[in-house]
């Protein structure tokens, strides 16, 4: 037996002569990307000629883990798929179980579920536009947006006891309740957030620096958006009015008034605008939930979970989230599979990055708000 010989080697594709064009590794660890993903960007001068997307850096085998846990334990597991959409996963998973067993969720729980979902959406969207400012080097704007997001974090901590994982959902209902004091706290803080978000919206809408870097960058024309079947803010930024909250009525959404926000710019700027306008829309949704919150039970009485198959869909902050569940009559699922929004969106990066500049690569990647830990799980 001989010890493996470690020879330092240089990637033969990395050619550093700028005239010949070279390959720039963006990732797997890169300051502008919050999560590990790897793009091999072939560059000529400052212009990107080809992008190769490589996945698989944070695969944790979660779908296999789900098959070793019972239906209740999987709520905890799915909550840990990803931090930014940590409410959407258990929320959709629980809906899948409920669809399978025909459980009717009490009215109050429906409102509380929508409320948790929208609170997470506001924080997630603010985080994404903050990162946009960070990428273009606009540090003061980044700090400002993150400071406003911090109010949302305070709300989450006060209402749910946690800054990221809310642990709000359980099969047949919710695990938390709010009283009049909490609702007052919530609405008072939402007023603060709304004032700030409106201000931030105007900055992103009008600031010449933000516009100069984002308008016309990362174009995804509407026909390409349809072709790649993109979802969430990416689709809505290309003028497609797709929103699972409207298309597939669930939780309290059929009883709440809200608009599907669309922009027609098809660029990075439009997607940022979508997120800020949706944050405002979500503030109004949380207010409606707090105002109309009906009384009653928090959890439905649970029947035995039969063998069968079910699907549930919801609108996570990044777009459509689908859960598929198959049971065999035991308490351990036979198959649990989910399709996350980033999976649909990141293939479209190839279109968005066509002939873009190197400096726009992180901006374009951030504009689909990629969630790698969801996608690779």
């Amino acid at each position: 037996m001989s010890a493996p010989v470690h020879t330092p080697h240089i990637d033969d594709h990395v050619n550093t002569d700028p005239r010949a064009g070279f390959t720039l590794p963006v990732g797997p660890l890169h300051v502008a990307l919050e999560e590990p993903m790897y793009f091999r960007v072939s560059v000529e001068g400052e212009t990107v000629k080809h992008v190769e997307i490589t996945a698989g850096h944070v695969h944790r085998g979660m779908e296999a883990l789900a098959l070793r846990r019972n239906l209740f334990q999987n709520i905890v597991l799915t909550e840990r798929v990803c931090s930014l959409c940590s409410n959407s996963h258990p929320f959709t998973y629980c809906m899948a179980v409920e669809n399978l067993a025909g459980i009717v969720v009490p009215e109050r729980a429906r409102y509380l579920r929508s409320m948790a979902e929208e609170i997470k959406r506001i924080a997630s969207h603010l985080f994404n536009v903050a990162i946009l400012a960070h990428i273009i080097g606009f540090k003061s704007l980044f700090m400002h947006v993150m400071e406003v997001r911090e109010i949302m974090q305070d709300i989450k901590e006060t209402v749910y006891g946690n800054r990221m994982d809310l642990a709000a959902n359980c099969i047949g209902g919710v695990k938390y309740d709010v009283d009049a004091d909490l609702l007052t706290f919530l609405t008072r803080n939402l007023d603060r957030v709304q004032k700030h978000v409106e201000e931030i919206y105007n900055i992103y809408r009008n600031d010449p620096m933000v516009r100069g870097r984002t308008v016309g960058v990362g174009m995804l024309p509407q026909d390409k958006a349809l072709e790649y079947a993109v979802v969430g803010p990416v689709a809505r930024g290309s003028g497609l009015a797709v929103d699972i909250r409207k298309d597939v009525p669930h939780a309290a959404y059929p009883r709440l008034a809200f608009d599907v926000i669309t922009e027609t710019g098809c660029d990075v700027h439009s997607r940022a605008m979508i997120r800020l306008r949706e944050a405002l829309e979500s503030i109004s949704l949380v207010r409606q939930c707090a105002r109309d919150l009906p009384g009653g039970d928090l959890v439905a009485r649970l029947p035995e979970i039969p063998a069968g198959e079910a699907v549930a869909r919801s609108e996570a902050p990044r777009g459509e989230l689908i859960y598929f569940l198959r049971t065999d009559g035991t308490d351990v699922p036979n198959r649990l599979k989910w399709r996350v929004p980033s999976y649909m969106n990141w293939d479209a990066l190839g279109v968005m990055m066509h002939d873009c500049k190197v400096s726009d690569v992180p901006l374009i990647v951030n504009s689909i708000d990629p969630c790698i830990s969801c996608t690779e799980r």
Partner: protein
Amino acid sequence: MSYATELFTQTGLGLLGLLVFPGGLFALMVGLFLKGLDRRIEARLQRRVGPPLIQPYLDIAKLFTKETVMPASANRTAFLLAPLLGLTGMAVCAALLPVPGVSGGLPAMGDLLVIFYLLPLPAIALMVGGSASSSPFGAMGFSREMTLMFAYEMPLLAVMLAVAMKVGMATGGGAEFSLASIVNYQLTNGQLAFDPVMIPALLAYLLFLPGTMGTVPFDVPEAETEIIEGPLLEYSGPALAFFHIASALKTVVVLGLGVALFLPGTVPGGILANIPWFVLKCAALMAVSLTLVKSATGRFRVDQAFTFYLKYPSVLALASLVLAWRGM
């Protein structure tokens, strides 16, 4: 005998100027202080506490205790010499710098032109180091730095010519490239910052500063979120420290040059009052042209930065130059 004494005194003064004051130690201390102040003000503008003022000194000290790791495929000589190239250039520039009311700086023939030629050295050092590191990010930074340098050197030249022309025309024909004479002219005839003809040149100089210092919105060659610090990516330990020291010296050089060209006014009280006064003016120039600007903007793309420099500072500086040349 007297020639030998003269030579000895001149060499001694030269070394003193290069190593202690106004260059060398003094410039380094002031430069690091200004860097710390810059970070502190920026933090306050973002409602952060910010690092202690002593942080840049500590950072340099720490880097000297670390090892310089070199990529296996790097060109060793160029990689290690590049940081020293920038450092020496800036050390010489700092020695040439007049501190009004304290010292006239080391005299050199047409020292304004000497400074103009030496000023791009840190940028060139970055380019050399970046391409020697054999990293694609370094190569990217190389091409960006080169593009940007062409853009911001042009307004600098126009500003220098405008000031030289203004002082030269007033003191009897021809452009005046001696920094000492430029300072002396202003001490008797009023500072150029308050001369309406020279205000466009001052504005152009203020716009030139963030470009040459590589701060937002012109930090394109190092852009952390795009090409992860480009040329500096592969540097570590003392080699990186030399880049930081060169950058600290450059801060003093470009700000001190701004003081000498536009604001050389002195305060009564001799050396003890005029050294802090000089530092204060540098800090004020820095706050206006670097700290506030970087807090209020994001980064340009390299093509946007290039167009910006061709459009605004060049036109402003040329306006002053033409006016000064017409004897106004």
